[in-house]
């Protein structure tokens, strides 16, 4: 430590005290209070198994690594021809992912319509958030996240924010980038490699509005294999 420890003069101390007092302690805005309370309530319901997605802790990191590695290993061969058959019937399926170090199950997903594609990347979710099994949990899709250089005019006009997830970090293997559009203001509760009806996929869960998207990232652009949306994102 070479920085000089010069003492502050009384004038400086008084000026700093006035400076600090010039901003009264802020109160949490009602919208933020409500948003956090909602998230806590949703988490409590999830814990009780009353609402999907159900979250169960995975106790050991090797399990997460195993899931991710296994999912990645079969992804290349399993998904290429999957989107069209899935889109052609009305079966429901269950998506599972290990986002945030937890097993997340999203049942009753409806296969997406054939050709339902999302091609616009407007928000960069860096991999820093995914370290230590934290996943992308909690990130809010909002207008400020739009990167203009990557935003096409039609998407900007349509309004929805989007998420581009680079899945895989740490012990997880790298996977292709996938792109999905989510409703503006939705809070992403998980983005990770998982499975859908037994096949490897990327599962994105978000809430307010509740949304689950299952992406086949082997196709370029990525195809939504299945989804559950409270509100249309189109």
């Amino acid at each position, binding site marked *: 430590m070479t920085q000089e420890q010069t003492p502050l003069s009384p004038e400086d101390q008084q000026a*700093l005290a006035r400076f600090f007092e010039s901003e009264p302690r802020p109160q949490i805005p009602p919208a933020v209070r409500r948003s956090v309370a909602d998230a806590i309530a949703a988490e409590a319901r999830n814990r009780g198994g009353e609402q999907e997605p159900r979250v169960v802790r995975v106790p050991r990191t090797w399990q997460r690594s195993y899931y991710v590695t296994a999912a990645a290993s079969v992804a290349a061969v399993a998904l290429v021809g999957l989107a069209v058959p899935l889109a052609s019937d009305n079966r429901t399926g269950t998506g599972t992912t290990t986002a945030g170090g937890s097993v997340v199950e999203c049942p009753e997903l409806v296969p997406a319509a054939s050709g339902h594609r999302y091609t616009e990347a407007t928000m960069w979710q860096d991999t820093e958030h995914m370290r230590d099994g934290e996943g992308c949990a909690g990130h809010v899709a909002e207008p400020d996240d739009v990167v203009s250089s990557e935003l096409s005019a039609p998407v900007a006009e349509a309004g929805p924010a989007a998420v581009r997830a680079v899945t895989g970090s740490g012990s997880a293997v790298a996977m292709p980038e996938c792109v999905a559009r989510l409703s503006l203001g939705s809070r992403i509760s998980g983005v990770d490699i998982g499975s859908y009806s037994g096949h490897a996929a990327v599962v994105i869960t978000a809430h307010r509005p509740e949304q689950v998207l299952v992406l086949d990232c082997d196709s370029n652009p990525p195809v939504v294999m299945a989804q559950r949306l409270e509100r249309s994102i189109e």
Partner: protein
Amino acid sequence: MTTDDRSDEDLLQAHVAGDPEAFGLLFGRHADRLWAVALRTSRDPEEAADAVQDAMLSAFRRAQTFRGQSKVSTWLHRIVVNACLDRMRSRRARPTVSLPEQGVGQTLAEPRDLIEEHETRLTVRSALLQLPPEQRAAVVLVDLEGWTVEGAARVLDCPAGTVKSRCHRGRQRLAEILRNRGELPNVTEQSREPAVGETLRGGSA
């Protein structure tokens, strides 16, 4: 709101035992203070909101790991501050201050009032934003939020001496910033700074 008579520790234990309401009550009880720390440590309200929500969900899930070695409020503050610091480290610095949102039917303030308020906030926050994140967190806790050095050390999970050092450097830097803006006289006379454990604003937590 939070009319429950149970202590913070009791609420946390109840949450761990499966009480679905307990953690929400705990958050409601500390929401304003957690928000104040997050807002002053983060670069803007949106970042602060995300950090608080991330932190509360993290605390919700990790509640069973709380060992009772500090107060529950200290533990919650630590998680919020860490969430803020994590977010700042992982993102480029982009200092902005949002103008307050006006709800439907709300009486609009005079534009001039809004601008003046905005400028005041910009002065305080933009000055704080020029401090390194760890210094900023220490200054926010001790000088703005009134925590003792020891309490802030528990929140920041570092020795009290480190908090003192960070506060000292932060204050020096802030004084320089204010002086450069002409809000502080160019004094050459030097005197002692606050003694050990003393804060500019006093208070305890």
